[in-house]
């Protein structure tokens, strides 16, 4: 009987001590929210354009951090941001969606613009300049192609154009390395025999 009492008492005491230590550790190592959200949010371009399907960059980073969203939905960020997020989350990088592959640009047809300033208010990156009753125009360098300005325009004078590739941004395509080439050949060889 005493043996059983000893067993219960010692196990209870031991469990209590470890519980108290863990409770103290919980206080010491307390964290507010998920730190991954802030890390992902810092990588995103903060245009709040909503093209990812979430109302802004913060909600999207929350969705990515909790693995509810894929890493490839940020259109303005493009492939660079997608690779960074994939690396941070430790998941495989995913191809950007096909429609996002061609960068778009907003263009105001100035002779139709009535100078209502509605598109200026809608632009998340302040890429539209103009004043009331004056023509507005888009600063091409700053436009992320988010299409948020198209909806509010009362006269529908904003077009989305495919962004022209500027000569400053053009570069030679990367060379195929010998090793990669051999890999391709071997895979084709296997495929043709299968």
């Amino acid at each position, binding site marked *: 009987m005493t043996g059983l009492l*000893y067993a219960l008492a*010692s196990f209870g005491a*031991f469990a209590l001590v470890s519980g108290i230590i863990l409770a103290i*550790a919980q206080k010491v190592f307390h964290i507010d929210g998920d730190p991954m959200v802030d*890390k992902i949010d810092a990588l995103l371009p903060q245009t709040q354009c909503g093209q990812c399907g979430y109302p802004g960059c913060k909600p999207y980073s929350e969705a990515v951090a909790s693995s509810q969203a894929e890493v490839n939905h940020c259109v303005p960020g493009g492939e660079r941001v997608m690779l960074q997020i994939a690396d*941070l989350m*430790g998941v495989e990088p995913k191809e950007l969606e096909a429609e996002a592959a061609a960068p778009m640009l907003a263009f105001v047809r100035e002779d139709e613009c009535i100078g209502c300033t509605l598109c200026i208010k809608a632009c998340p990156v302040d890429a539209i300049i103009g004043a009331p009753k004056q023509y507005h125009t888009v600063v091409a360098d700053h436009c992320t192609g988010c299409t948020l300005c198209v909806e509010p325009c009362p006269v529908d004078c904003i077009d989305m154009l495919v962004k022209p590739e500027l000569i400053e941004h053009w570069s030679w395509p990367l060379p195929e390395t010998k090793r990669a080439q051999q890999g391709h050949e071997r895979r084709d060889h296997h495929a043709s025999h299968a």
Partner: protein
Amino acid sequence: MTEIALILLSAVLVNNFVLTKFLGICPFLGTSSKVETAVGMSFAVMFVMTLASTASWLVQQYVLIPLQLEYLQTIFFILIIASLVQFIEMMIHKTSPVLYQGLGIFLPLITTNCAVLGVAILNVQQEQTFLTSALYGFGAAVGFALVLILFAGLRERIEVSPVPELFKGSPLALITAGMMSLAFMGFSGLVKI
């Protein structure tokens, strides 16, 4: 001094927990797809194993034997290991959220890593002293870390090589693990403890 070296050598290479005793296989396969994650997992296991083997030795000597409660060994050791894992989980979540994300479910699963409980129970069975049991725990953890990181490196290289479709992923990982185990059998003639 020789004894210390022998214990470490025995735990790290000769009686390697993963490849010769086949304990702790689950995290060995689960967290070895990236070297970074493997390194993080290794340090977490090293921390838990060393502390768990010393703490369980203390509990065995100063609580269970005086009260003649040796039959409660398993449940006491599990309690120690579970608390330690909870502690390190909070610590990693605070200090390195990226590693926390990378380890995912395998971090709380250190609790059920049989290598951790195995080293605690083997220490008691072999009637080690305090110092040797701590060393044995540490050596076993270093052995685990060594093979985990080696295996992760191998898997990273395999990932980018042209592998027949049939063997991609887990099949080749299992074959690689088996070959590593064969290689580690070569150490068995090194020391006898």
